[in-house]
């Protein structure tokens, strides 16, 4: 064990941490916006469209994020779409975030009793105003706990970007280990940094869930 090595490499690891946080925020913003849209569109009154979106979401969700990333970074250049490491990672992770958010949205909307739809319809509301004013506002409350959980998973999974060479926390750890050969200490500290970011979010999700369980 070498505390000195850990202390000396801490600034470099924290630089990686900043990138991890920025990367996570960017992907969460992009993926959530797209995922919310896709998730709501799944319930459009045209049967075929909704079913098509459902299938697409299920298929993309079944592909591991690592493979999605490799397909975009190594596979797409073969057909002339070459992306540098960072955009490739952001694209792969945003796709992942999009389909998983869409799935959370589906669960939230389906948990709303059908009576709400019938009530909105009998008031003469069209599909868009019904979704906007009746269904989505109620569903959002139930989406919050699984959505926060999803964000935690995403933050942990940004570590995969290191494998295609994006500089973030995990890559910073790997580079530090190449210099110091102290893999046990450096990876443990790296894990601790991820923990400090993710644990409060997990707690937040648990608290939101407990609040939902209580009758309002």
């Amino acid at each position, binding site marked *: 064990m070498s505390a000195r090595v850990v202390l000396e490499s801490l600034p470099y690891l924290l630089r990686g941490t900043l990138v991890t946080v920025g990367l996570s925020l960017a992907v969460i913003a992009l993926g959530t916006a797209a995922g919310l849209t896709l998730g709501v569109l799944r319930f459009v009154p045209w049967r075929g469209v909704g079913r098509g979106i459902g299938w697409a979401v299920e298929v993309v969700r079944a592909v*591991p994020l*690592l493979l999605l990333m490799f*397909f975009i970074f*190594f*596979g797409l250049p*073969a057909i002339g779409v070459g992306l540098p490491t960072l955009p490739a990672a952001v694209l792969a992770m945003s796709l992942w975030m999009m389909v998983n958010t869409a799935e959370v949205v589906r669960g939230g909307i389906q948990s709303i009793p059908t009576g709400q739809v019938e009530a909105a319809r009998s008031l003469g509301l069209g599909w868009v105003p019904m979704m906007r004013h009746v269904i989505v506002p109620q569903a959002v409350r139930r989406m919050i706990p699984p959505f926060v959980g999803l964000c*935690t998973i995403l933050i942990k999974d940004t570590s995969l970007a290191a494998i295609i060479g994006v500089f973030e926390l995990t890559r910073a750890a790997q580079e530090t280990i190449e210099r110091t050969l102290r893999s046990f200490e450096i990876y443990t500290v790296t894990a601790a940094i991820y923990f400090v970011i*993710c644990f409060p979010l997990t707690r937040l999700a648990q608290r939101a869930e407990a609040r939902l369980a209580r009758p309002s």
Partner: protein
Amino acid sequence: MTAGPTAYSFAWSAVWRGLPYLLQGAAFTVFVSALAMVVAVALGLVLAALTEVRGGLARPLVRAYVEVFRNTPLLIQIFIVYFGLPQLGWRLSPFLSGLSALVLYAAAYNAEIFRAGLEAVPRGQHEAARSIGLSELGALRFVIVPQAIRIAFPALGNNLVSLVKNSSLVSTIGMVELMFVANDIAFNNFRTFEIYGAAALLYVLLVLALTRALHLAERRMARAR
């Protein structure tokens, strides 16, 4: 010749030639996931039971384990086992490193799932079991745990699906499963688009078959009640 997307000629024969190797990788992905899940279910159950013990160190220790493994990246956990532990004189093969990392990660989630399942069984069930003369262990064994497992089943199924996808990460330390095989072929023949596409398709088939099977089992369980 104009460059661009249309200039690319697909070589699906590369997929055809790589298919036996890819299928072998897929089979290994299934094997590793199943093995890891069986161990992780047993471990998760034990951990959840330990959190029921009031007083003593068991409860806080299990809580700490669960939180640490759920709130740190699986990739880092794999790297600690494979690259970190040898530094402490504990060297494991890629297979054992990958397997134990997957087990520890999945067990943390399973423990939490079982704990929630145990808590969801109404207290009256426990009292009823005791009042018909079952011992404390008998009540757990025959009344509480079977119901808890039924409640936990959907979440366990989701965790298994995650495990199949997460097993792709052990390719980074050299376990020869589907992701590793795809890399191996793609970096040899440079047909990256076709090979990664084929591997993705295999994962989709695997995961969809699994979710369908879990759905059926869930429905059967609900009917048997």
